[in-house]
């Protein structure tokens, strides 16, 4: 099986089966544009991906050979897919690594990995208040004070007041 070398930003080299590497449309296009001149000698530098993340990416690619097949058929990857148990466990990591993985999947154009990882982040956001989201994901507030006026204020307003007596129109 032909093998190519992928080099991470921190200089590590990963010998990778070509078919696995082609899960990345970026790499696939690169290989198609520049055909192999000498077998087992091609080195592809990936300056945007460090070794820890590249290792994870390759673990995903090895587990999802069908990703490559889909790209081959020229179909757009399934948009929002179900995340399997394996995927969920694979994607359970600290936020920093998850974001780096997302950026790598984006750079390497690996649609299914990108969609699954983004869905994971979306699921972390769902059901949380704005303040919780801000704190969890360290989102800086760059609105001016007057714009901030519209931001939610944490008060103890109950969500469902007693409605049985509230039949007077305009009673909010």
């Amino acid at each position: 099986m032909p093998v190519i070398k992928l080099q991470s930003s921190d200089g590590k080299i990963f010998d990778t089966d070509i078919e696995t590497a082609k899960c990345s449309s970026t790499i696939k296009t690169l290989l198609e544009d520049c055909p192999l001149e000498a077998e087992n000698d091609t080195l592809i530098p990936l300056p945007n991906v460090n070794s820890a993340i590249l290792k994870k990416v390759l673990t995903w690619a090895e587990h999802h050979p069908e990703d490559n097949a889909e790209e081959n058929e020229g179909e757009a990857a399934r948009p929002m897919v179900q995340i399997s148990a394996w995927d969920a466990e694979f994607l359970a990591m600290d936020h920093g690594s998850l974001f780096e993985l997302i950026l790598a999947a984006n750079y390497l154009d690996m649609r299914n990995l990108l969609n699954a990882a983004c869905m994971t982040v979306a699921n972390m956001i769902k059901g949380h208040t704005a303040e919780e989201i801000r704190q969890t994901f360290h989102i800086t507030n760059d609105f001016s004070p007057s714009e901030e006026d519209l931001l939610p204020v944490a008060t103890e307003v109950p969500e469902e007041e007693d409605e049985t007596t509230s039949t007077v129109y305009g009673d909010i």
Partner: protein
Amino acid sequence: MTSASDTEPTAASLLQLNDDVLALIIRQLNVYQQFQIGRLNRRLESIVQMLWRTRVRNVVLQDEMFGRSVTNSRQFVAFIQALAPHMQRLSCQQLDVRRLRLLSSHTLESIHSLEWLGNAHRRGRVRFVDEDVRLLHRVFPNLKSLKLRGCQITGKYLCDLEHLTDLRLDDCQFLESQHFRDIFRQLRLRKFDIMEDCDEVNCCDLADLQLCPTLEHIKIADYHLCMESDITQQLLRLPHLRKLSIYSKNFVFDVLSRIARPTSPPGAVRLIEAFRFSGVLHDYGRFFRELGNLRQLTRLELHGQPEEEDGDQLQCLEDQMLRQLASQLRELTELHLCGYQLESPLGLLEFVINCRQLRVLDITRSRCHGESFVWSCIAILAKQRWRSRPLELWIRHSDINPEIVQSPRCLDNTKLIKVDAKQIGPNMDYTSGVLKFSFVR
């Protein structure tokens, strides 16, 4: 982008992702959460705006969306105002009506379609009342389509929604007949639907329905046809009427005879070109005799439903009445007899013989002696020199083996017959007990 040294102590921020990726994530959130996220940071706001430009024409609002967050009045109004330039169709599903009232002094001009789906049975809930219809008039001045479900309205003020062309009322149990006069006189309605859950509704008199000359689609119940007076004939004279659906639990024959044998002079009433019925009947002979009066019918669709007491046995159609009907409805181009037990192929074959324009014969879910029916069809079709197109025979879930499509006899006769084992009819939504008439334009 990851750097060469990857063990930075700084906290990971969502903002280190690029805009395309952030859009991918934000797209998966409900519209209110998108709004909340957009309020956290300018970059996120511009991404949300970019998404909203094309993705929020249709918006669904539910109370759960505002659940966990403390959504005060200002926040909710700011949310709606942010959506306003993009929204065209709004559906409020089990939304607290007090939220709607927060919009009382605002105007949402882009919205042309509104659904308010309340739950009439939820006790203690603040209800959507007549004053809320006045609010709709103020807040949605360009409303063309309105559906109200489970509301405590009488019908008053609906006549003020001057641009309304499509009105649907479902499970509104306090409607008063007196208000419908103004509705039908003042509004240029094209669609009027009061058929859903009409078993539960107080019988309101729609005697003035025929005063609305712009009506094209009407969905009512059988009792609406004849409360104080019989309005059937007037309905049949509506100049633009295209479809009339009547739900009838117990008076199917009565309804059919009023419409199939109109008492108006010929030419005065609209001609019926298609008829559809789904349900259980106990006298198909009588039913078919009435249908036989619709001489210009081109499409006939009947869906039998198994009777529960008989352990899911299909209802039976006898040859004699089918043959009689075939001799009367010679203009048929489409015949759908789905979910029936046929006495023998002879009844159906009579349609193939008599109806020279027959294009589609649909026996989905029916049983008619299996493959022998197909061979008999082919034998008849072979003699029909006038045929320019093959007859389509739909056999999904019937007693004909779907592999017949590949049989040599079928493959040799594709000019005569096209057997289709996969075709599902255009409408899967068949409410039982509804007679649907379609009129010639």
